[in-house]
């Protein structure tokens, strides 16, 4: 994880949560939840 976490991510399906930065947020939006592969939207990220 990056040192500069800008968002808190919570998966709507598996409830996994983690702190992510901009580039990880973009990767998750494109590739889905890394834990359960659920499709994600920007609503699943909140600013820290």
């Amino acid at each position, binding site marked *: *994880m990056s040192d500069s976490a800008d968002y808190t991510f919570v998966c709507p*399906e*598996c*409830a*996994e949560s*983690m702190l992510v930065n901009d*580039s*990880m947020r973009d*990767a*998750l939006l*494109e*590739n*889905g939840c*890394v*834990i*359960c*592969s*659920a499709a994600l939207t920007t609503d699943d990220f909140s600013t820290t």
Partner: protein
Amino acid sequence: MSLDQQTELSPDEIREVLSRHETGVLSLAKADEPYAIPISYGYDGETGRFYLRLVSTPESEKRQFLTSSPRARLVVHESNDGSYRSIIAEGTLERVDPDELTVERIVQYGKAKRPLFEIWGETKRDLDIQLFELDPETLGGRAVELDAAESDQ
């Protein structure tokens, strides 16, 4: 069938087979007790690493074999156009801590399909989904031409 009808696959051929498939059989062991399960995987042809999501519950048999970093073998095989090909990867299965995620890993797990064989009654929130990587210490593949093998019989 004689052994000389088998040919070793080149690294490029192995990469091609692994890249066009997404399922295989993962074998683990505990003492003298074997455990093999069908799994879905993602494969990075550049680094040679496999990316796996393994689902278990506290009571599941699988959990007993996933403690620490187990030795593992992954077998992928196919049969088409008169040819049979099999790949065997062997190494240590390393668990990936979600806190160690990187953009690269997110992309690789994005390529790994949903665990096709993991059908559970529980919702995802009640399952323990763990991420693993297999960086094979040995990776080999063989091909057998079925027509040639049958002509010997």
